[in-house]
């Protein structure tokens, strides 16, 4: 018998490929310091995945590299020890303890960044250069082309963000676009039903607009906070979508 290709690791590889334009533009901007930070997070994340592989026979995933990159980009500017604690907490309790990518509820990058943000509130939030937002457009195009990105989430979020911003693109900062494409639209984290995905994307857009309106802080913190809250709401949105689907079917088929 023949088997298809859309296993978990294929999806992770498509994500890695889509990350390349963003990675190039970010490393170009950050230089040696940023590269060092990326390598540090990467090694630490790989170490935790390897430990879970050896002690719990839980196969590692290339999606960990995407999360590690997102952490290097989005984490507040803390020292290496704090960063190590945050990455360990994020990967172990955000993903690996639940069974790895595809079984977890939250993205380890979101957990790490929020952990560091709550734990070290005086640390400065990074400022993402504008080219990262532009580089996220080809990334989203690659992901959409392969059908990996849930397009309903992307469209739902963009519609709400543009409408809430008074039909201009002020709310679409680099941080919001990067978080939307790589963390919110992660198919393993996002809602899985069609209606649930519309609601999930719209909810992210609404929360981002709400935080931006009432909260004087960096766009990264706004975007990641919204991402944390929507991924916690995803199972509820799916339940709602399934209840609606069942009600419609009861009405139609008796």
């Amino acid at each position, binding site marked *: 018998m*023949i088997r*298809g290709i859309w296993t978990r690791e294929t999806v992770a590889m498509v994500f890695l490929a889509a990350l390349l334009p963003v990675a190039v533009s970010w490393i170009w901007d950050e230089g040696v310091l940023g590269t060092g930070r990326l390598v540090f997070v990467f090694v630490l994340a790989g170490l935790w995945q390897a430990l879970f592989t050896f002690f719990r026979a839980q196969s590692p995933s290339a999606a960990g590299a995407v999360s590690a990159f997102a952490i290097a980009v989005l984490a507040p500017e803390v020292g290496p020890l704090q960063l190590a604690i945050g990455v360990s907490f994020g990967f172990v309790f955000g993903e690996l303890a639940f069974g790895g990518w*595809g079984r977890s509820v939250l993205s380890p990058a979101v957990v790490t960044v929020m952990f560091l943000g709550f734990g070290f509130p005086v640390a400065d939030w990074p400022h993402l250069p504008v080219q990262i937002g532009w580089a996220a457009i080809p990334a989203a195009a690659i992901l959409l082309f392969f059908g990996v990105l849930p397009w309903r989430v992307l469209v739902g979020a963009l519609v709400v963000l543009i409408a809430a911003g008074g039909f201009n693109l002020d709310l679409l900062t680099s941080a919001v676009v990067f978080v939307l494409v790589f963390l919110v639209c992660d*198919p393993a984290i996002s809602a899985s039903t069609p209606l649930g995905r519309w609601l999930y994307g719209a909810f992210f857009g609404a929360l981002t607009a709400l935080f931006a309106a009432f909260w004087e802080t960096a766009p990264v913190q706004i975007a990641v906070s919204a991402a944390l809250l929507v991924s916690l709401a995803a199972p509820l949105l799916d339940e709602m979508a399934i209840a609606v689907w069942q009600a419609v079917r009861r009405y139609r088929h008796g």
Partner: protein
Amino acid sequence: MALRHLLQSSGLWMQLRARPFGKVPEASAAPAAIFVMAVDTRPLAPDPHHAIGEENIARLNLGLRALSRFCEGPLFFCQDRGPDIPDPHDGLKIIRTSELHPEGLAGLQIHRLFPARLSRQVWDILVEDVVAIGHLLSEGLLPETKVVSLAGPGLREARLVRCPPGADLRELCYAFMSPGPRMILSGSVLDGRESRWLGFHDRQVTVLERREPTPRHWLEAALRRASRPEPVIATAAVEQALGGAMPGMALLRALSIGDDEAAVDLDVLSLVEEDLALVDYVTAASPRFSDLLRAALNRIEANA
């Protein structure tokens, strides 16, 4: 009643499949609806038009009239987008389906149009068997052969043959095989199984190249032997493999954790193994969702 007895004694009753659970209906059972499938979208499947033909239209209409006497509800005739194949009569609804798999699966159409329940059976039957019913009623004889397609990368050329039920597949394919080790599946590449004889419901034979698994380095083999299989990610491929008709990921999750109650709420009772074969192919899932579905259906049937 006489018609029921005639079908049962001639063996044509065995060609009916009842959902829920995908078994031959009981001798006295009455369906709420019957689906006649005149499309087959599985890869390399024979075009059902070959089985119908000009000369069989009258037999098809006779067979459909006979079937409509079994149920109070509608008789659905699923066909391609061309002109209507059967003559219209009361209770017959003609459904046009797309040519893309999985649109031609009976399970998907039943799920959309008339879902099966524990208290409500839905039967499905292939159009060639309805023609056979018409043949039996008009001439008193059963057709001796059926149209079967032989295809696949292990053959030099694809063939469409008429052969008796349960034919010897090696004998059928031997003359057309290309050299090298081969594997003969009775059924499509998605849901067929390796077999010496043509399966009872199968209309196609797929010949594949037999590939022996290459031995791995012991370390790689140890690292790949995970305690739990990799989860399925909700991509557009998975959504389309289920026809986009139901909350697919929720159904797959309910099946993989053995949550039968949630699976019933998501209309698992309208499905049989072949309906999830495309998902198994697309995601290379292990264990196969079609096996999990059968296990869930067996549990539900035992508890019903």
